[in-house]
């Protein structure tokens, strides 16, 4: 999932970002509401995780703003404010869930999974293309009895390709979908990543599934 994580305290932001990335999410981590309110218009997020108290634009305002744009991705509020009145305010502003600090990382990941299941794009814990199966929780790829463990980046590329089967995806599209906002991947990063994924696919005997369309990009399809 593409997640926007907004938290002004970098000491709290960084571990959450790491934890979310480790389970395969692409995380745009920003520290102020202003940047965040610009980003929600630029990128299509699957989930927003917002801290309440932020400099310039608060998490609540951000949430209202997001809902006013008629965007429907779930919003998870994280805050130190724990009174019932605060929770009501948070949920009324359009948040779907509410976690009080200190955030238990395992709980956060579980809630993110739960919110993901509610998404209209939810296809289950597995995505399938012909006899190729991608396990979203364990980051593994299966074909028949064979089973391989993917790295986070390989998994993210595989997920992106499998969610857009038979489509030609350009290098730019892949770059934008897989890398966090503001990070600058090396010029050949996509090529290297595709090569690495092909090697992994080879072990499953599916190397030729990932096809290079010259001058355009890449495409995942079942040869049969």
């Amino acid at each position, binding site marked *: 999932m593409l997640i926007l994580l907004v938290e*002004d*305290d*970098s*000491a*709290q932001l*960084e*571990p*959450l970002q*790491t*934890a979310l990335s*480790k389970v395969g999410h692409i995380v745009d981590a920003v520290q102020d509401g202003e940047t965040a309110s610009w980003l929600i218009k630029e990128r299509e997020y699957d989930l927003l995780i917002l801290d309440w*108290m*932020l*400099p*310039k634009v*608060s998490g609540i305002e951000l949430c209202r703003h997001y809902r006013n744009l008629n965007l429907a991705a779930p919003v998870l509020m994280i805050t*130190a*404010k*724990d009174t019932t009145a605060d929770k009501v305010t948070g949920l009324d502003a359009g948040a779907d869930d509410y976690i009080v*600090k*200190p*955030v*238990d*990382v*395992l709980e956060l990941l579980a809630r993110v999974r739960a919110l993901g299941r509610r998404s209209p794009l939810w296809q289950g814990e597995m995505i399938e293309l012909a006899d190729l199966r991608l396990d979203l929780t364990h980051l593994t790829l299966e074909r028949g009895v064979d089973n391989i463990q993917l790295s986070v980046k390989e998994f993210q590329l595989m997920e992106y390709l499998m969610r857009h089967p038979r489509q030609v995806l350009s290098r730019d599209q892949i770059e934008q979908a897989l890398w966090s906002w503001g990070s600058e991947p090396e010029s050949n990063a996509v090529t290297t990543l595709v090569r690495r994924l092909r090697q992994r696919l080879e072990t499953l005997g599916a190397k030729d599934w990932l096809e290079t369309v010259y001058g355009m990009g890449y495409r995942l399809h079942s040869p049969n």
Partner: protein
Amino acid sequence: MFERSRRRLAYWFALSMGSILILFAFTVYHRQVKDQMREFDARIYDQAKRIAASTTYQKQGESWLIDTENVSLRDRNALESKIIYIRWYDFQQRLLQFTGYSPHQRSQVTPGWQTQKYDFHLKGQPLSKHLRRLTLPLKDDGSPVGYLQIAVSLGPLQTSLARSRLFLSLGIPIALTFTGVVGWILGHFAMQPAKRSYEQLQRFTADASHELRAPIAAILSNAQVGLLASEDDDQERDQRLSNIVIQSKSMSSLVANLLFLARHEGQLNPQDVANIDLVELLSSIAEGYIDSAIDKDLRFEVDLPASPVEVHSDRDLLQRAIGNLLDNAFKYTPNGGKITMRLEPKPRQVLIKIMDTGIGIPEVDLPHIFDRFYRVDKARTRETGGVGLGLAIARQIIKAHDGKITVVSEAEKGTTVQICLPLQPQ
């Protein structure tokens, strides 16, 4: 919550004031009725006396002849126009004479006052009126002659009382409404202090929970991410552990500050109090800030008198208070600015001034800056500024020294903090 208290206050105020008002109004009305009645009666009595005096009697055997020739009703006044009838009876209560309304039945003659209702027909319409009747025994040299009966309509009196009742029935609700409104307004003022301290408490709890939870949150998530890391990823684990160390230290300093505030509330510890030279103390504190002044390209001026200035105080605490103020000055003064620390001895007190050309404090925040955990930056960004205890600690220390700390600030211009410490009488 405050709205409800305010409503209740207004309600009780209106109710109590209203009851007093209604009681007062009824008393006044009651007195008015009695006074007017007495006055009315007095006038009837005068009239009756006059009539009695102008009536002449002649004894004829056992009975008396009553002559009403001389009775004159010509000097008509308001009362006379309302006379319904005048009747003369002999002492056996037989009607002898009458003017005005004719009796249609034989009525009982009892001396004294009566209030009666009588019915009559006016142009075929049945009407009823109240009348006041006085029956006066007539005497001649002490022997009873007969009775004079005079009846007057109570109409004018009733009209006047009706007017009073109308005035009261309109006036009381208006006054009650007015009391309610006044109570509502007073309630607002009465609620203000409670509301202020409630808001302050609310702010304190919210801020404290934010400050206490932030390091815990960071420690917890770092620890959990460390545990999630694969076994051979030593670098990741080391990174997490060192983050936890940093966060634990900041947590520990926060707790230390809170404990400090709790422990040093009130009096100084007499063992730690001694005569210290402020000039020496301030110059040693200033030395510690020279490096940061150079780093931030700040002009740091220290203006101290040549001779020592001795005060009776706890050196460590005073150093901490002044250190907190200087920390703030350095933190909130942009590069290229100027910070001045000045010591001004006065006859009975000594002033320590710390002036900066920093970002200043907005006027709305000035009354609160000494509150624990209060920060001008509502988002409480960790990158700029601390947890909001520095000034609270400084003030508590200065207060314990019987001193005063004041802040004058202008946004974008700078801030001046002044500490005023009393000098020991020599």
